[in-house]
Protein backbone atom coordinates (compact mmCIF):
# COMPACT_ATOMS: atom_id res chain seq x y z
CA UNK A 1 0.00 0.00 0.00
CA UNK A 2 1.31 3.42 -0.91
CA UNK A 3 2.39 5.69 1.92
CA UNK A 4 1.55 9.39 2.02
CA UNK A 5 3.94 12.09 3.11
CA UNK A 6 3.59 15.84 3.35
CA UNK A 7 6.20 18.56 3.13
CA UNK A 8 6.20 21.81 5.08
CA UNK A 9 8.50 24.77 4.62
CA UNK A 10 8.94 26.28 8.11
CA UNK A 11 8.91 29.85 6.87
CA UNK A 12 6.07 30.74 9.22
CA UNK A 13 6.05 30.93 13.02
CA UNK A 14 6.79 27.51 14.60
CA UNK A 15 3.34 26.70 16.00
CA UNK A 16 1.59 27.01 12.66
CA UNK A 17 3.85 24.33 11.15
CA UNK A 18 3.31 22.16 14.23
CA UNK A 19 -0.45 22.54 13.86
CA UNK A 20 -0.28 21.58 10.17
CA UNK A 21 1.59 18.44 11.23
CA UNK A 22 -1.06 17.60 13.83
CA UNK A 23 -3.78 17.97 11.18
CA UNK A 24 -1.69 15.85 8.79
CA UNK A 25 -1.34 13.00 11.27
CA UNK A 26 -5.06 13.06 11.98
CA UNK A 27 -5.76 13.10 8.23
CA UNK A 28 -3.82 9.87 7.69
CA UNK A 29 -0.42 11.00 6.50
CA UNK A 30 2.46 8.63 7.33
CA UNK A 31 5.39 11.06 7.01
CA UNK A 32 6.00 14.74 7.62
CA UNK A 33 9.01 16.20 5.82
CA UNK A 34 10.41 19.55 6.95
CA UNK A 35 12.66 21.47 4.57
CA UNK A 36 16.06 22.71 5.73
CA UNK A 37 17.03 26.18 4.54
CA UNK A 38 19.24 28.60 6.46
CA UNK A 39 16.68 31.39 6.02
CA UNK A 40 13.73 29.48 7.53
CA UNK A 41 13.07 28.12 11.03
CA UNK A 42 15.49 25.39 12.05
CA UNK A 43 14.48 21.95 10.87
CA UNK A 44 15.45 20.09 14.07
CA UNK A 45 13.69 22.53 16.38
CA UNK A 46 10.59 22.20 14.22
CA UNK A 47 10.72 18.40 14.07
CA UNK A 48 11.29 18.12 17.83
CA UNK A 49 8.22 20.24 18.50
CA UNK A 50 6.18 18.23 16.01
CA UNK A 51 7.29 15.03 17.75
CA UNK A 52 5.94 16.39 21.03
CA UNK A 53 2.51 17.13 19.61
CA UNK A 54 2.02 14.03 17.43
CA UNK A 55 1.95 10.32 18.18
CA UNK A 56 3.01 8.26 15.22
CA UNK A 57 3.73 10.24 12.07
CA UNK A 58 7.32 9.72 10.84
CA UNK A 59 9.55 12.76 11.09
CA UNK A 60 12.01 13.61 8.35
CA UNK A 61 14.38 16.30 7.19
CA UNK A 62 13.26 16.99 3.67
CA UNK A 63 16.06 17.58 2.87
CA UNK A 64 19.19 18.71 4.65
CA UNK A 65 22.49 19.03 2.77
CA UNK A 66 26.13 18.36 3.67
CA UNK A 67 27.42 21.81 2.69
CA UNK A 68 25.45 24.09 5.00
CA UNK A 69 25.28 21.50 7.75
CA UNK A 70 28.32 19.31 8.36
CA UNK A 71 27.12 15.68 8.46
CA UNK A 72 28.75 15.20 11.86
CA UNK A 73 26.31 17.77 13.21
CA UNK A 74 23.48 16.17 11.23
CA UNK A 75 24.30 12.85 12.94
CA UNK A 76 24.25 14.57 16.35
CA UNK A 77 20.93 16.28 15.67
CA UNK A 78 19.15 13.37 14.05
CA UNK A 79 20.27 10.89 16.74
CA UNK A 80 19.08 13.32 19.43
CA UNK A 81 15.73 13.61 17.69
CA UNK A 82 15.50 9.81 17.58
CA UNK A 83 15.93 9.77 21.36
CA UNK A 84 12.91 12.05 21.60
CA UNK A 85 10.88 10.03 19.09
CA UNK A 86 12.26 6.47 18.71
CA UNK A 87 11.37 4.59 15.51
CA UNK A 88 9.85 7.72 13.99
CA UNK A 89 12.86 9.56 12.59
CA UNK A 90 14.15 9.47 9.03
CA UNK A 91 16.91 11.57 7.52
CA UNK A 92 16.49 13.11 4.10
CA UNK A 93 19.69 14.46 2.60
CA UNK A 94 20.53 15.89 -0.81
CA UNK A 95 23.08 18.10 -2.47
CA UNK A 96 21.23 21.36 -1.90
CA UNK A 97 20.96 23.94 -4.61
CA UNK A 98 23.62 26.06 -6.25
CA UNK A 99 21.84 29.40 -5.83
CA UNK A 100 21.26 29.07 -2.08
CA UNK A 101 24.78 27.81 -1.44
CA UNK A 102 26.40 30.61 -3.43
CA UNK A 103 24.34 33.18 -1.52
CA UNK A 104 26.08 32.14 1.69
CA UNK A 105 29.51 31.72 0.14
CA UNK A 106 29.58 27.94 -0.13
CA UNK A 107 30.82 26.08 -3.18
CA UNK A 108 28.59 23.49 -4.78
CA UNK A 109 31.31 20.91 -5.49
CA UNK A 110 31.57 17.13 -5.75
CA UNK A 111 27.88 16.61 -4.89
CA UNK A 112 28.06 12.83 -5.28
CA UNK A 113 31.09 12.53 -2.99
CA UNK A 114 29.56 14.89 -0.43
CA UNK A 115 26.28 13.02 -0.29
CA UNK A 116 27.81 9.53 -0.35
CA UNK A 117 30.23 10.35 2.47
CA UNK A 118 27.60 12.25 4.45
CA UNK A 119 25.38 9.18 4.43
CA UNK A 120 28.25 7.07 5.78
CA UNK A 121 29.05 9.64 8.47
CA UNK A 122 25.42 9.96 9.61
CA UNK A 123 24.80 6.22 9.69
CA UNK A 124 28.02 5.38 11.51
CA UNK A 125 27.90 8.11 14.13
CA UNK A 126 24.16 7.85 14.82
CA UNK A 127 24.56 4.14 15.48
CA UNK A 128 27.21 4.88 18.13
CA UNK A 129 30.18 3.58 16.20
CA UNK A 130 33.60 5.16 15.83
CA UNK A 131 34.29 6.66 12.41
CA UNK A 132 37.50 7.06 10.48
CA UNK A 133 37.00 8.43 6.99
CA UNK A 134 39.57 9.67 4.51
CA UNK A 135 37.13 10.80 1.87
CA UNK A 136 37.11 13.21 -1.05
CA UNK A 137 34.80 15.56 0.82
CA UNK A 138 35.35 14.83 4.54
CA UNK A 139 38.28 13.77 6.71
CA UNK A 140 37.17 12.23 10.00
CA UNK A 141 39.60 10.79 12.53
CA UNK A 142 38.18 8.62 15.31
CA UNK A 143 34.93 10.57 15.77
CA UNK A 144 32.26 9.07 18.00
CA UNK A 145 29.09 10.36 19.68
CA UNK A 146 28.68 9.94 23.44
CA UNK A 147 25.29 8.35 22.79
CA UNK A 148 23.52 6.56 19.97
CA UNK A 149 20.17 6.55 18.34
CA UNK A 150 17.83 4.07 20.07
CA UNK A 151 16.50 3.00 16.67
CA UNK A 152 17.76 2.72 13.12
CA UNK A 153 17.43 5.97 11.18
CA UNK A 154 16.60 5.31 7.53
CA UNK A 155 18.44 7.67 5.21
CA UNK A 156 16.57 9.02 2.18
CA UNK A 157 18.48 10.69 -0.62
CA UNK A 158 16.92 13.68 -2.34
CA UNK A 159 17.68 13.37 -6.03
CA UNK A 160 16.76 14.70 -9.45
CA UNK A 161 19.73 14.15 -11.78
CA UNK A 162 20.65 10.69 -13.13
CA UNK A 163 23.89 10.26 -11.16
CA UNK A 164 22.32 11.20 -7.81
CA UNK A 165 19.33 8.93 -8.51
CA UNK A 166 21.71 6.06 -9.22
CA UNK A 167 23.60 6.77 -6.01
CA UNK A 168 20.30 6.75 -4.12
CA UNK A 169 19.54 3.31 -5.51
CA UNK A 170 22.98 2.17 -4.48
CA UNK A 171 23.11 3.36 -0.87
CA UNK A 172 19.77 4.88 0.20
CA UNK A 173 17.10 3.40 2.42
CA UNK A 174 14.79 5.61 0.42
CA UNK A 175 14.87 8.21 -2.30
CA UNK A 176 12.99 11.47 -2.57
CA UNK A 177 12.54 12.18 -6.28
CA UNK A 178 11.97 15.84 -7.04
CA UNK A 179 9.33 15.38 -9.71
CA UNK A 180 5.58 15.36 -10.22
CA UNK A 181 5.06 13.98 -13.73
CA UNK A 182 4.98 10.26 -14.60
CA UNK A 183 7.47 10.83 -17.45
CA UNK A 184 10.09 12.20 -15.06
CA UNK A 185 9.31 9.65 -12.36
CA UNK A 186 9.53 6.73 -14.77
CA UNK A 187 12.92 7.96 -15.93
CA UNK A 188 14.02 8.45 -12.32
CA UNK A 189 12.96 4.97 -11.24
CA UNK A 190 15.02 3.52 -14.12
CA UNK A 191 18.11 5.34 -12.88
CA UNK A 192 17.45 4.22 -9.31
CA UNK A 193 17.20 0.64 -10.51
CA UNK A 194 20.66 0.96 -12.10
CA UNK A 195 22.06 1.83 -8.68
CA UNK A 196 20.11 -0.96 -7.04
CA UNK A 197 21.52 -3.44 -9.57
CA UNK A 198 25.07 -2.14 -9.09
CA UNK A 199 24.83 -2.66 -5.32
CA UNK A 200 23.22 -6.08 -5.75
CA UNK A 201 20.14 -4.96 -3.86
CA UNK A 202 16.42 -5.26 -4.53
CA UNK A 203 14.22 -2.29 -5.43
CA UNK A 204 11.78 -3.46 -2.75
CA UNK A 205 14.40 -2.53 -0.12
CA UNK A 206 13.91 1.13 -0.99
CA UNK A 207 11.05 3.48 -0.23
CA UNK A 208 10.80 5.33 -3.55
CA UNK A 209 9.05 8.62 -2.95
CA UNK A 210 7.69 11.14 -5.45
CA UNK A 211 8.34 14.53 -3.86
CA UNK A 212 5.74 16.47 -5.79
CA UNK A 213 4.56 20.01 -6.12
CA UNK A 214 0.91 19.59 -5.18
CA UNK A 215 -2.10 21.86 -4.99
CA UNK A 216 -5.68 20.82 -4.29
CA UNK A 217 -8.95 22.75 -4.04
CA UNK A 218 -12.58 22.19 -4.96
CA UNK A 219 -12.13 25.00 -7.49
CA UNK A 220 -9.54 23.94 -10.10
CA UNK A 221 -8.55 27.51 -10.95
CA UNK A 222 -7.71 28.26 -7.31
CA UNK A 223 -5.58 25.12 -7.07
CA UNK A 224 -3.69 26.11 -10.21
CA UNK A 225 -3.28 29.71 -9.10
CA UNK A 226 -1.63 28.51 -5.89
CA UNK A 227 0.75 26.28 -7.84
CA UNK A 228 2.01 28.99 -10.21
CA UNK A 229 4.79 30.48 -8.01
CA UNK A 230 6.19 27.04 -7.15
CA UNK A 231 6.09 25.95 -10.80
CA UNK A 232 7.86 29.16 -11.85
CA UNK A 233 10.75 28.34 -9.53
CA UNK A 234 10.85 24.72 -10.75
CA UNK A 235 11.00 25.89 -14.38
CA UNK A 236 13.65 28.41 -13.39
CA UNK A 237 15.82 25.64 -11.99
CA UNK A 238 15.21 23.00 -14.65
CA UNK A 239 17.82 22.16 -17.29
CA UNK A 240 16.70 22.30 -20.95
CA UNK A 241 16.76 18.51 -21.24
CA UNK A 242 13.96 18.31 -18.66
CA UNK A 243 11.99 21.16 -20.26
CA UNK A 244 12.28 19.52 -23.70
CA UNK A 245 11.01 16.23 -22.30
CA UNK A 246 7.73 18.03 -21.64
CA UNK A 247 7.74 20.11 -24.86
CA UNK A 248 8.04 23.29 -22.84
CA UNK A 249 8.68 26.42 -24.91
CA UNK A 250 12.34 27.19 -24.12
CA UNK A 251 11.94 30.90 -24.81
CA UNK A 252 9.12 31.20 -22.31
CA UNK A 253 11.14 29.19 -19.80
CA UNK A 254 14.10 31.49 -20.33
CA UNK A 255 11.85 34.51 -19.75
CA UNK A 256 10.91 33.01 -16.38
CA UNK A 257 14.53 32.30 -15.48
CA UNK A 258 15.56 35.86 -16.39
CA UNK A 259 12.70 37.37 -14.42
CA UNK A 260 13.51 35.29 -11.33
CA UNK A 261 17.18 36.25 -11.47
CA UNK A 262 16.15 39.92 -11.62
CA UNK A 263 13.75 39.44 -8.72
CA UNK A 264 10.76 40.25 -10.98
CA UNK A 265 8.56 37.56 -9.53
CA UNK A 266 5.28 38.93 -10.89
CA UNK A 267 6.67 38.83 -14.42
CA UNK A 268 8.00 35.31 -13.89
CA UNK A 269 4.64 34.07 -12.64
CA UNK A 270 2.80 35.62 -15.61
CA UNK A 271 4.94 33.55 -17.98
CA UNK A 272 3.93 30.23 -16.40
CA UNK A 273 1.85 28.28 -18.94
CA UNK A 274 -0.65 25.46 -18.53
CA UNK A 275 1.94 23.09 -20.06
CA UNK A 276 4.34 24.00 -17.25
CA UNK A 277 1.68 23.47 -14.59
CA UNK A 278 0.90 20.06 -16.08
CA UNK A 279 4.56 19.05 -16.27
CA UNK A 280 5.77 20.22 -12.90
CA UNK A 281 2.85 19.96 -10.51
CA UNK A 282 -0.21 18.00 -9.56
CA UNK A 283 -2.87 20.67 -9.29
CA UNK A 284 -6.62 20.48 -9.44
CA UNK A 285 -9.80 19.21 -7.85
CA UNK A 286 -9.80 16.04 -5.69
CA UNK A 287 -10.96 13.95 -8.67
CA UNK A 288 -8.25 15.38 -10.93
CA UNK A 289 -5.61 14.81 -8.26
CA UNK A 290 -6.70 11.19 -7.77
CA UNK A 291 -6.35 10.54 -11.52
CA UNK A 292 -2.88 12.08 -11.56
CA UNK A 293 -1.72 10.22 -8.43
CA UNK A 294 -2.86 6.94 -9.99
CA UNK A 295 -0.62 7.62 -12.99
CA UNK A 296 2.27 8.52 -10.69
CA UNK A 297 1.90 5.26 -8.77
CA UNK A 298 2.12 3.24 -12.00
CA UNK A 299 5.80 4.26 -12.22
CA UNK A 300 6.78 2.22 -9.15
CA UNK A 301 6.47 4.92 -6.51
CA UNK A 302 5.92 3.66 -2.94
CA UNK A 303 5.46 7.01 -1.16
CA UNK A 304 3.54 9.99 -2.49
CA UNK A 305 4.73 13.24 -0.93
CA UNK A 306 2.39 16.21 -1.05
CA UNK A 307 4.78 19.13 -1.45
CA UNK A 308 4.40 22.88 -1.68
CA UNK A 309 2.10 24.68 -2.08
CA UNK A 310 -0.38 21.92 -0.89
CA UNK A 311 -3.28 24.22 -1.79
CA UNK A 312 -4.63 27.77 -1.56
CA UNK A 313 -5.68 27.12 2.04
CA UNK A 314 -3.24 24.73 3.71
CA UNK A 315 -5.49 23.50 6.52
CA UNK A 316 -8.50 22.95 4.24
CA UNK A 317 -6.28 21.19 1.71
CA UNK A 318 -4.81 18.84 4.35
CA UNK A 319 -8.32 17.90 5.50
CA UNK A 320 -9.46 17.47 1.88
CA UNK A 321 -6.58 15.08 1.18
CA UNK A 322 -7.45 13.15 4.35
CA UNK A 323 -11.12 12.89 3.41
CA UNK A 324 -11.00 12.47 -0.36
CA UNK A 325 -7.57 11.30 -1.48
CA UNK A 326 -5.85 9.02 1.05
CA UNK A 327 -8.88 6.70 1.56
CA UNK A 328 -8.93 6.00 -2.19
CA UNK A 329 -5.47 4.44 -2.04
Amino acid at each position, binding site marked *: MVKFGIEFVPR*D*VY*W*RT*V*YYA*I*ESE*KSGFDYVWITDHYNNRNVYVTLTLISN*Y*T*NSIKLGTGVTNPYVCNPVFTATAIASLAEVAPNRVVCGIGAGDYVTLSTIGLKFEKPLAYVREAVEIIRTLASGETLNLDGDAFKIKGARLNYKSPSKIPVYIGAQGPAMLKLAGEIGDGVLINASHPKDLKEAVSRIKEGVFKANRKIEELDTAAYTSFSIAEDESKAIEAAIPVVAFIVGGSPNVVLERHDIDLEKAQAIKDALVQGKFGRAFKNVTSDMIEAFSIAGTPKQCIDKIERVLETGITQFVVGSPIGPD*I*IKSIRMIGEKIIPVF
Partner: protein
Amino acid sequence: MSLNSILDSLPEDAKSQLFEKLLGILFKSKNVDKADPAYIARFLHLAKEGLLRSNECLKTMLYIAVSMEGEETSSVLSERAELIKLRDAVFS
Protein backbone atom coordinates in the same frame (compact mmCIF):
# COMPACT_ATOMS: atom_id res chain seq x y z
CA MET B 1 -22.10 34.27 33.25
CA SER B 2 -18.79 32.49 32.90
CA LEU B 3 -17.24 31.78 29.51
CA ASN B 4 -17.78 28.08 30.11
CA SER B 5 -21.48 28.41 30.72
CA ILE B 6 -21.89 30.68 27.69
CA LEU B 7 -20.00 28.17 25.53
CA ASP B 8 -22.13 25.36 26.99
CA SER B 9 -25.25 27.17 25.87
CA LEU B 10 -24.11 27.58 22.25
CA PRO B 11 -25.60 25.33 19.58
CA GLU B 12 -23.10 23.00 17.90
CA ASP B 13 -23.24 24.77 14.55
CA ALA B 14 -22.40 28.09 16.21
CA LYS B 15 -19.45 26.47 18.00
CA SER B 16 -18.28 24.91 14.76
CA GLN B 17 -18.51 28.21 12.89
CA LEU B 18 -16.75 30.00 15.74
CA PHE B 19 -13.92 27.45 15.68
CA GLU B 20 -13.33 27.91 11.94
CA LYS B 21 -13.41 31.70 12.23
CA LEU B 22 -10.96 31.71 15.14
CA LEU B 23 -8.69 29.30 13.27
CA GLY B 24 -8.74 31.74 10.37
CA ILE B 25 -7.64 34.57 12.64
CA LEU B 26 -4.87 32.51 14.24
CA PHE B 27 -3.45 31.42 10.90
CA LYS B 28 -3.82 34.63 8.91
CA SER B 29 -2.83 37.26 11.45
CA LYS B 30 0.55 38.92 11.07
CA ASN B 31 0.68 39.69 14.80
CA VAL B 32 2.22 36.36 15.72
CA ASP B 33 4.48 38.02 18.29
CA LYS B 34 1.39 38.97 20.32
CA ALA B 35 0.34 35.36 20.89
CA ASP B 36 1.12 34.12 24.41
CA PRO B 37 3.36 31.00 24.13
CA ALA B 38 1.56 29.40 27.08
CA TYR B 39 -1.79 29.63 25.31
CA ILE B 40 -0.21 28.42 22.08
CA ALA B 41 1.18 25.37 23.90
CA ARG B 42 -2.29 24.72 25.35
CA PHE B 43 -3.89 25.04 21.91
CA LEU B 44 -1.42 22.58 20.37
CA HIS B 45 -1.89 20.16 23.26
CA LEU B 46 -5.67 20.22 22.83
CA ALA B 47 -5.27 19.76 19.07
CA LYS B 48 -3.07 16.73 19.68
CA GLU B 49 -5.64 15.25 22.03
CA GLY B 50 -8.43 15.71 19.48
CA LEU B 51 -10.20 18.32 21.63
CA LEU B 52 -10.29 21.14 19.10
CA ARG B 53 -14.06 21.63 19.39
CA SER B 54 -14.03 21.53 23.20
CA ASN B 55 -14.94 24.55 25.31
CA GLU B 56 -11.41 24.56 26.67
CA CYS B 57 -9.96 24.86 23.17
CA LEU B 58 -12.44 27.51 22.07
CA LYS B 59 -11.57 29.54 25.17
CA THR B 60 -7.86 29.16 24.47
CA MET B 61 -8.32 30.17 20.84
CA LEU B 62 -10.38 33.16 21.93
CA TYR B 63 -7.58 34.37 24.22
CA ILE B 64 -5.04 34.00 21.41
CA ALA B 65 -7.30 35.62 18.80
CA VAL B 66 -8.08 38.60 21.04
CA SER B 67 -4.38 39.23 21.65
CA MET B 68 -3.55 38.95 17.95
CA GLU B 69 -6.56 40.63 16.35
CA GLY B 70 -8.86 42.21 18.92
CA GLU B 71 -11.12 44.11 16.53
CA GLU B 72 -11.53 41.22 14.12
CA THR B 73 -12.33 38.85 16.98
CA SER B 74 -14.95 41.26 18.27
CA SER B 75 -16.41 41.45 14.80
CA VAL B 76 -16.59 37.63 14.53
CA LEU B 77 -18.37 37.50 17.88
CA SER B 78 -20.90 40.02 16.63
CA GLU B 79 -21.87 38.02 13.55
CA ARG B 80 -24.43 35.78 15.29
CA ALA B 81 -26.89 36.63 18.01
CA GLU B 82 -25.82 33.55 20.03
CA LEU B 83 -22.26 34.90 20.22
CA ILE B 84 -23.07 38.37 21.57
CA LYS B 85 -22.97 37.22 25.19
CA LEU B 86 -19.61 35.66 24.50
CA ARG B 87 -18.32 38.90 22.99
CA ASP B 88 -19.52 40.89 26.00
CA ALA B 89 -17.91 38.42 28.42
CA VAL B 90 -14.59 38.41 26.56
CA PHE B 91 -14.33 42.15 26.14
CA SER B 92 -15.85 43.23 29.46
